[in-house]
């Protein structure tokens, strides 16, 4: 009996050793990831897009990450500072981070608070063109108190002080490497920008810009048995459909990012059984931005500007029209046809995190053509001989613009048909994304100028705090020639009541109260009809069946945020 037990123990011990051996660093070979937009640079502060931020997140780390549910998890810090644990001062004007001890850069040198201090100085240098500058808004100083403590001070009370160094957009770079690359010299440091040294699980071996990155496991990574993969190949280029094919049909790659592909194509490919399609929902909302001011070209400089409310849109200034347009849309059909797993019906411009999601506008979830028609009839919009409604010589004829993209053009066509049923005529227009989203002053087709009646696009916010996002629709954020068309208040919405709530949000720290205010702001926008939300959009990716360890699109952070845990399923 004793013998049997010893034997059993021995077997158990052997089994344990076996698993330990399996979990060794670099034991799982190569991980192959496909991004159809290829990374251009491995310095996220100078990047031109999300792909670069993701590609560099394997190398460099922030103080804390967001997990796939939007919770903060410490990365280079011991814990996330809060008012409760004393890390955030009572007046909300400073935050103190305690850094992990014993962390090494991939070149073997020690990671200290001075690197954090340097990163802030690097990004705050106005000549450097740092794209994470917004993260450092209102920061007055970032100081290394000692080697493992960093204190950040703010100009104003920050109820949510996690802008700097949280999430993959604002990670820590090495002082020793970038010291001579400050300001105007930043872009000329090609070696540094391509061969970034980091504390993360992987380091760069080979980088071919706009093509491929080859990483190998960082032997100085702080967790001894991670990462499980010895190397990572991150290939870019091509298009989303063939990227999906490489994971789901040929099995050449393990993970493919951002697959905005017609849903039926993905379903067919998934049947091959090599991988699965996965999706996650963040804060992205495909929405219609209503133009509340008059976009008539005859107005010259005053075109599509607010003019203290003296330049109203000929018919979209009527609340009945705005409400009817929203009621007439069958959002279920739009999701089914264009998004599949990657979309959900939403009636909010602020759809997530869950505590911020309002339910006050759920009337929009079901299409109500009869109700919309009645609303327009009551408001005095009469159908003309061609079926298009008009009142006092103003016809309900809408110019509806968006960026060029097959799913968006499909959505446009559906909505045009739905609006036809309520006697609204629609002219569709699509503009190349690089023009529409580019802020070129000389182009009349940018989404800021909004020289149309309705425009459609997706926007979102980073992290989990909606304050900056909700501030986009205050009166002073209206794009106009005076502001060089800068600003995100595309509808030209202006309500002093809304501005008051915005100011209140900036002073409130308790999360429950913040949620109440943010919801109220969301409801004001939707109820007024300045924004007509359509679809809550998710990130879609394809993952091989053999890839384990939490490889999942992370809408709050970069997808590879937890790549040290990814492994090959046995």
């Amino acid at each position: 009996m004793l013998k049997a037990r010893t034997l059993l123990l021995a077997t158990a011990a052997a089994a344990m050793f076996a698993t330990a051996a399996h979990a060794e660093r670099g034991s799982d070979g190569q991980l192959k990831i496909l991004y159809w937009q290829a990374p251009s640079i491995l310095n996220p502060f100078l990047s031109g897009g999300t792909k670069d931020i993701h590609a560099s997140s394997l190398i460099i780390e922030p103080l804390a990450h967001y997990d796939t549910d939007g919770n903060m998890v410490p990365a280079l810090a011991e814990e996330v500072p809060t008012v409760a644990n004393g890390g955030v001062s009572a007046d909300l004007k400073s935050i103190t981070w305690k850094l992990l001890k014993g962390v090494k850069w991939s070149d073997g040198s020690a990671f200290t608070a001075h690197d954090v201090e340097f990163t802030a100085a690097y990004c705050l240098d106005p000549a450097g063109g740092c794209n994470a500058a917004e993260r450092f808004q209102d920061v007055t100083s970032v100081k290394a108190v000692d080697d493992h403590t960093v204190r950040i001070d703010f100009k104003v009370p920050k109820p949510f002080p996690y802008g700097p160094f949280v999430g993959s957009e604002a990670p820590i770079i090495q002082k020793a490497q970038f010291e001579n690359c400050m300001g105007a010299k930043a872009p000329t440091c090609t070696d540094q920008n391509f061969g970034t040294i980091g504390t993360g699980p992987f380091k760069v071996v080979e980088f071919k810009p706009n093509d491929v990155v080859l990483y190998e496991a960082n032997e100085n990574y702080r967790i001894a048995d991670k990462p499980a993969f010895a190397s990572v190949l991150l290939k870019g280029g091509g298009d989303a459909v063939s990227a999906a094919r490489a994971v789901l049909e040929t099995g050449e790659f393990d993970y493919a990012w951002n697959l905005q592909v017609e849903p039926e194509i993905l379903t067919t490919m998934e049947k091959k059984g090599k991988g699965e399609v996965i999706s996650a929902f963040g804060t992205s909302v495909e929405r219609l931005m209503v133009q509340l001011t008059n976009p008539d070209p005859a107005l010259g400089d005053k075109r599509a500007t607010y003019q203290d409310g003296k330049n109203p849109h000929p018919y979209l200034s009527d609340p009945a029209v705005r409400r009817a347009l929203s009621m007439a849309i069958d959002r279920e059909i739009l999701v089914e046809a264009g998004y599949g797993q990657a979309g959900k019906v939403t009636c909010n411009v602020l759809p997530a995190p869950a505590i911020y999601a309002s339910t006050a506008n759920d009337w929009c979830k079901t299409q109500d053509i009869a109700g919309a028609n009645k609303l327009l009839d009551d408001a005095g919009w009469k159908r003309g001989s061609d079926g298009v409604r008009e009142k006092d010589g103003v016809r309900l004829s809408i110019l509806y613009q968006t960026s060029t993209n097959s799913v968006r053009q499909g959505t446009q066509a559906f909505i045009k048909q739905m609006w036809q049923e309520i006697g609204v005529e629609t002219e569709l227009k699509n503009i190349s994304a690089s023009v529409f989203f580019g802020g070129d002053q000389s182009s009349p087709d940018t989404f800021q100028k909004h020289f149309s009646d309705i425009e459609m696009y997706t926007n979102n916010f980073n992290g989990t705090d909606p304050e900056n996002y909700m501030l986009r629709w205050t009166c002073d954020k209206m794009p106009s020639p005076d502001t060089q068309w800068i600003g995100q208040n595309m509808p030209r919405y202006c309500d002093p009541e809304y501005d008051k709530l915005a100011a209140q949000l900036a002073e409130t720290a308790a999360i429950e109260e913040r949620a109440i205010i943010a919801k109220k702001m969301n409801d004001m926008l939707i109820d007024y009809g300045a924004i007509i939300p359509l679809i809550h959009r998710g990130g879609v990716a394809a993952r091989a069946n053999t890839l384990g360890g939490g490889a999942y699109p992370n809408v709050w952070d970069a997808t590879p945020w937890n790549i040290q845990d990814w492994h090959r399923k046995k």
Partner: protein
Amino acid sequence: MFRYAIRRLLFAIPTLLVISFIIFALLDLAPSDPTAQLPLTIPEEVREMIKLSLGLGEPFHIRYLRWLEQFLVNEPLNLIEQFWGIEIGNSEDRLRVRSWSTRAPVVDLIAARLPQTLSVVGVSYIVAILIAVPIGVISAYKQYSIFDQVGTFISMIGFSVPTFFTGTVMIVIFSVVLGWLPSIYDTTLEVRDYDSFVAQFKQMIMPVMVLGLFNAAQLSRFMRSSMLDNLNQEYVRTARSKGMGEPVVILIHVLRNSMIPVVTVIALGLPTTFAGAIITEQIFRINGVGQLLIGAIEGADIPTVQTVTFIFAVLIVVFNLIADLLYGMLDPRIRYD
């Protein structure tokens, strides 16, 4: 001949200057924004600062002259320095044409991509010639035979079916259904031993064949019509009446004379080798020069687009000149002096 070559060369200089101005001005005037691909969550104030850091605040003529200086003076100096390992003047401070998306010198980006473009597109060009010349010769010699009919049919298909279609069909057949060949080109692969050679060979088969067949279709038609022109000439009859064997008549006399126009077509087609085959590179993710150009256009990376396009223009002008000179050498009846 020499004077003609010199004259043509001198004439190329103003041509290229005009081209450079047109390219620069067109791209500069076109509405585009290098920060358009940044996440929308980044505010406009930050975007403005990024644009200023890219040098967009300067007036047009300053930027044009600076680009010309960087491209025509600084870059050649850099090449010379790298080639001979010497240092001319203050090379640290010399400004280079930098890409906006990668912040790296554009010339370095092109140099990094030339190997894969040349190996795939170049090999496909050779394959095209190897396929096209025999087919053209036999089709012409046996005009209206079954071989000719089939050859005409195949080259019409090759000519009219676009590469994005043939490429995708090949991927579906050989990668998805049969699983023999990789659908994605691995640019990190280095040929060191037999195994890596096999891997390189396998990943080149599909793109080379797709492009090769497309080019071969065109070239074989040229070859065939040129052969037909020559077969009816008096000198062919003379050669035959002198008792020469058919192989000698066809392969020595007719083929050589028929090659003259075909060589010109081949020489004029060579710049496209450098330009890469944009669509084929995209399908197989070869990421060569063609993909660099298309990526730069999508990302509004104006300096890259300007430089790559201008290099293509230079190559086209140069190869035109070479084709003209070759023509004179191959055909003694043509002399330019």
